[in-house]
């Protein structure tokens, strides 16, 4: 494939990504249907069976129950464009079928952590049933929440030799799942600021720029509560991971001021990308990988991790409670931790892989295929220690805290 073709494809992927991730999932059939189905299911007498004991954050992993024999099938839910799947074809999926003899039903069904939780996990698990899935991919804070609720199956690390051998030490023992008892990372990225050099007229370096009245009406913020609160807290000089409710109240005030001064254009989900690309936003909170793509198409776009700091997030593989094919699910997890497989996925996905050795492998591949150079060398895909130094994770929230934060955040974005 010639070089321009490769870029073209990457841009098309980016376009599809921003269409598919939220807009389409949320507003077309699935979103609306799920709305109805969720309500209906909720109606069918899910009167809060406490099906699983709640675990307090940081509790030791329980010893997992023994694995059943292989079933020969596995159902995987992932985000769109998170694997080399194009026109229904995927080399990775084919290889898995060949290597293990397991039929894989791979669906790009996750458009939003909260929505997937509400439509695909909550009702089923609370009703004491299995969900549709053997593998889900959820962001770190949602993994934390699911562990607190006791809604994930513990992992059998003894059948995950690739994970033991290849999990990069950087990703070992994460804050949301100490000891990786219930999850292993799939890909990681950073929330920072994306901006259009032409529209801002100057380089953007700090969160304070998002609060500058000079850019009134051209600033995008996220409707994702944790990301936006983290930014407000960083601006105030607070460590987001230890924020108190009083800090959040102050942060809400700061954000309200920003909103009422007319600086914020709107609070966006994944749809911020087309507003940034279309020149409606001069600067906006942004996810590293997205801007990476958009910049291929429009060199005026840039991504920066602000001086005050950015947010570091990780998406993780996990097995929901009562999954029907846990043994096959483990086979999939171990498979994607093979260096060669992970390299194939990362060359397509352009987010940081937690599998050690992938970057070197891509650098080698780039010798032969120059179109891989951006992903082989990018600081955004492979953040340097200096960049990581500046990033923060999210605070671990108890369910009660999360509700209290939402009570403050929702009126802000839905005024």
């Amino acid at each position, binding site marked *: 494939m010639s070089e321009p073709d490769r870029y073209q494809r990457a841009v098309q992927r980016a376009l599809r990504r921003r269409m598919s991730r939220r807009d389409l999932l949320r507003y077309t059939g699935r979103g609306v249907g799920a709305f109805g189905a969720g309500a209906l299911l*909720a109606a069918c007498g899910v*009167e809060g069976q406490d099906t699983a004991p709640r675990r307090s954050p940081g509790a030791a992993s329980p010893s997992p129950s023994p694995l059943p024999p292989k079933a020969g099938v596995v159902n995987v839910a992932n985000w769109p464009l998170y694997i080399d799947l194009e026109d229904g074809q995927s080399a990775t999926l084919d290889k898995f079928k060949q290597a293990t003899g397991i039929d894989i039903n791979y669906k790009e069904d996750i458009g939003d952590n*909260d*929505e997937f939780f*509400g439509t695909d996990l909550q009702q089923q698990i609370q009703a004491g049933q299995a969900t549709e899935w053997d593998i889900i991919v959820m962001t770190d804070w949602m993994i934390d929440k699911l562990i607190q609720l006791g809604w994930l199956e513990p992992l059998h690390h003894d059948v995950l030799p690739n994970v033991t051998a290849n999990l990069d030490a950087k990703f070992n023992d994460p804050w949301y799942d100490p000891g990786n008892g219930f999850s292993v990372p799939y890909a990681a990225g950073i929330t920072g600021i994306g901006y259009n050099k032409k529209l801002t007229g100057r380089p953007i370096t700090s969160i304070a720029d998002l609060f500058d009245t000079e850019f009134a009406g051209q600033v995008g913020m996220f409707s994702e509560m944790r990301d936006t609160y983290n930014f407000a807290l960083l601006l105030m000089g607070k460590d987001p991971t230890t924020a108190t409710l009083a800090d959040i109240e102050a942060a809400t005030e700061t954000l309200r001021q920003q909103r009422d001064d007319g600086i914020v254009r709107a609070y966006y989900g994944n749809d911020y990308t087309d507003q940034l690309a*279309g020149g*409606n936003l001069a600067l906006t909170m942004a996810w590293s990988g997205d801007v990476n793509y958009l910049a291929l198409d429009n060199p005026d776009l840039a991504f920066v991790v602000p001086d005050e700091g950015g947010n570091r997030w990780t998406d993780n593989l996990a097995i929901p409670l009562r999954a029907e094919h846990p043994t096959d699910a483990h086979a999939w997890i171990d498979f994607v931790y093979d260096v060669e497989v992970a390299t194939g996925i990362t060359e397509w996905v352009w987010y940081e892989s937690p599998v050690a050795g992938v970057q070197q492998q891509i650098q080698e591949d780039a010798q032969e295929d120059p179109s891989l150079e951006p992903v082989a060398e990018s600081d955004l895909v492979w953040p340097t220690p200096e960049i990581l130094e500046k990033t923060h994770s999210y605070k671990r929230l108890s369910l009660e805290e999360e509700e209290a934060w*939402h009570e403050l955040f929702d009126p802000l974005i839905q005024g």
Partner: protein
Amino acid sequence: MSDIVAERRAALTRRSLAPYFLLLPGLTWLGVFYVWPTIQMFFISLQEGSLATGYHLTWHWQTYGDVFTKYDTQLLRSVTYGLIVTGACLLIGYPLAYFIAVRGGRWKNALLFMVILPFFVSYVIRTLSWKFVLADQGMFLGALKNAGLLPDDFRLLATPIAVLSGLTYSFLPFMALPLYASLEKLDRSLLEAAGDLYASRRKAFLKVTLPLSLPGVFAGSLLTFIPVVGDFINAQLLGSTNTTMIGNVIQRRMLVNNDYPEGAAISFILMLAILIGVLVYARLLGTEELTG
């Protein structure tokens, strides 16, 4: 003799029951997919609890008062938007329907087809494409800005105007089609009669055409107002914080916060508000066809 009587009686019974059998599929559908979920939603609205503890039916009527005070802004905004959009659709739709019905001639069907044409594309896609049309530097605003007719920082996206325009566009056919139906069957000889009695054209319109088209106005207004008040897609895609409608609140309560009781309670308040509004409207307009 008696055989014939019995047979006729049986035939009569069959005939009088037939309409009810015809109703059966519709009623079953309505029962399973509307009445039953509505009853369930009602009970959910009276539950209390959280994700951690589960939700339990405690007949907690308090939720209704709580959400009413919490979301009164968005509720009022939705009703206001509903009224504005219905008014705008009427202003645009009436002349449109009138023209097609009265002057359409042999183009009538083609013109009607054009009114329905947008339905061939998904509602969401159409609303998304408004984002491109209204973009700050898009083909519309960009051109006006380049011509110096608009200040550079002028924008329509993420403002109430964009949301109201999007809603008006989306729901115009719901207004235009019933209006067309009632104008089309208007007996033109009545207008001639009015002319014979020295009514001016304006007077003939006000005294004859308008009153006779009121059923269309009524039906069109309902078909527009009700879905507009509950809409959340236009506000989500074209609006910002200050255009949040009650549908957006319900969506977020249900899907992001998993707070089903509050979401259900808001839905019922909305349903009740619309029902009362419609009844008052029916009484005021009092068209016989609809109120009997």
